[in-house]
């Protein structure tokens, strides 16, 4: 299987889908002539031309709305947000239009639109440019939310998202773009709502997605030496959530740590923790632990950013607590 970066996998997914379906197009700031602010659309303008790879002004509410309108009449837009921090100026379009038009019209319209771009902190970017906003979107019925953690998942999930007839919020890890991995060639799709066990284990389950799945795997590595076996479950899609996969894992390990880059209060982790505690109440040998970003706007200084974000130490400490390995 060819190895490539997460960035290249996304590019391949978009390019293949655009070759496959003339209704698919890419629109966003700097996606064309500049080859993408993060170079995800590298070469696509040359391949598909200005008709299908469209540079926009800095008008997110405008071009997000253009994407939604064009989807109502049969196009399949891929709308790139330079980062999801900027989606807040367009969130009314996503929540009040994309998520509701099908229902408000009594099912007369499909909304096959993908809103994609990077999310999360990326080093020294401070409060306005370091946010993980997935919980805002996951809260909204009518949307689907996808957050891949590997190049292969990035390709398989983006291809599915583009073919999906519903609005999909597809949040990439800004710090994952250069990560390398094996990626199946050509036709490779992953259904939305199906998670993946990134590492088998029996003592404790760690649920983590996007960038945080890597951190979970590092923690699992570290514990292996001490003979503690961690299972890493990556839901990959947050909405719909693969609840069964998580429950099966917890019924096996009896312990759960949820790891997320977002803020704690009413985050996705709270939802997962609550559901597991209800549905696997008797299977749990310890209270569910949550490791999240600190409940603070992101400071600029890098050493503070590292303190605010979930760290290997904090994850390992949480795992130890669920295993009653306090030392």
């Amino acid at each position: 299987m060819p190895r490539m970066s997460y960035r290249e996998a996304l590019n391949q997914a978009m390019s293949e889908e655009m070759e496959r379906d003339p209704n698919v197009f890419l629109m966003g700031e700097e996606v064309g002539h500049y080859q993408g602010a993060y170079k995800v659309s590298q070469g696509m303008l040359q391949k598909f031309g200005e008709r299908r790879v469209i540079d926009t002004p800095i008008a997110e509410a405008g071009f997000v709305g253009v994407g939604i309108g064009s989807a109502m009449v049969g196009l399949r837009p891929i709308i790139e947000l330079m980062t999801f921090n900027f989606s807040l100026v367009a969130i009314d379009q996503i929540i009040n239009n994309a998520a509701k038009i099908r229902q408000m019209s009594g099912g007369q319209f499909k909304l096959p639109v993908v809103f994609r771009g990077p999310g999360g902190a990326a080093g020294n970017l401070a409060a306005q440019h370091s946010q993980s906003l997935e919980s805002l979107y996951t809260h909204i019925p009518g949307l689907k939310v996808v957050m891949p953690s590997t190049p292969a998942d990035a390709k398989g999930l983006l291809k599915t998202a583009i073919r999906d007839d519903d609005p999909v919020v597809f949040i990439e890890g800004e710090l994952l773009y250069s990560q390398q991995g094996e990626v199946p060639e050509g036709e490779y799709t992953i259904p939305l709502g199906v998670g993946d066990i990134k590492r088998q284990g029996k003592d404790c389950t760690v649920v983590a997605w996007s960038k945080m799945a890597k951190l979970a795997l590092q923690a699992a590595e570290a514990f292996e030496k001490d003979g503690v076996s961690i299972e890493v479950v990556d839901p990959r899609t947050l909405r719909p959530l693969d609840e069964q996969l998580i429950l099966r894992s917890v019924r096996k390990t009896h312990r759960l740590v949820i790891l997320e880059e977002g803020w704690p209060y009413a985050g996705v982790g709270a939802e997962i923790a609550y559901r597991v505690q209800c549905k696997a109440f008797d299977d749990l040998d310890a209270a569910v632990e949550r490791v999240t970003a600190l409940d603070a706007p992101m400071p600029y200084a890098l050493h503070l950013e590292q303190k605010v974000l979930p760290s290997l130490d904090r994850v390992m400490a949480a795992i130890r607590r669920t295993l009653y390995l306090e030392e």
Partner: protein
Amino acid sequence: MELNQSTDAAASTAAEERTTLLEMYRQMLLIRRIEEASARAYAQSKIGGFLHLVIGQEAVCVGAIAALRPTDYVVATYREHGHCIAKAGGTREVAKAVMAELFGRSTGISKGLGGSMHMFDAPHRFLGGYGIVGGHVPLAAGVAFASKYRGEDDVTLCFFGDGSVPQGAFHEGLSLAGLWKLPVVFICENNQYSMGTPLYRTLAVEDVTARAAGYALERDRFRGEDVLEVRRRVAAAVERARKEQRPTLIEVITYRFRGHSMSDPGKYRSKEEVEQWMQRDPVPLARRRLVEMGTSEDELVSLEAAIKAEVQEAVGFADSSPPATDESIWQYIYADPKTDPQRM
């Protein structure tokens, strides 16, 4: 109010003109009567929530939409009953479906899920009914974008009120339409009030079309009581959009005879002001023109009787239709059949 000169884009012979006017009169009257009937149903609590009537402004939606081909698109606000009816050609079917929607019935045009503010009619390319002021403007640009993308020569009409002009979405939608030369016509129905607020308290520049210069849009501005004139002026913009992909910002000066919604007594307008505008009621105006053009009283009376019957039929249909189904709560959230909305 300085108003531009009329264009002759839709010049037509007297006979054709009478036929056109007769049909537009029929549609305006149908809309007027449907709105009056829904106001009564609201008073009887058969309709709830917000109900925004278009009474007084009928010439705008009817005249503008009469300038379209059936394959053209329309996007509108929450004050859209008339637009929805006109886009479907004012048939008895659409009258029934609109009334049933207001009653929250499964036979409604949005199956009782959208209601007064969210009527949709995909077969007739009426793309809704939106409740967030200005929020639908980018959607209209997107629909026009799709036509251009596919090389189809359909045009999109986007209606909005004077109140949406200061909204960010209005600005972004018009900016993109002008930049990309999209086949769209933006029609500001300037009824001079946004809820209880008169224009001069929301817009520093009361001529809405003054903004066209900043967006590279063509502009036109005129009074909206003469439905033939509305059709003529909008037709010119529609042709520009269709043939030359030059988008236009049109402002039509009009007036709503009722309150903003049923709950608004409209105290902020003087009795005199309202009466003065009612002198210019587009519906009787069209009727007078028809008589001048030689339409017989009999023809008009029977047409009016037919409309009365259609409206009664629509109300009866709505009243006797089954309520929106419980399943419909879940049925239309996601299109993908594999997605179970109850297992998120």
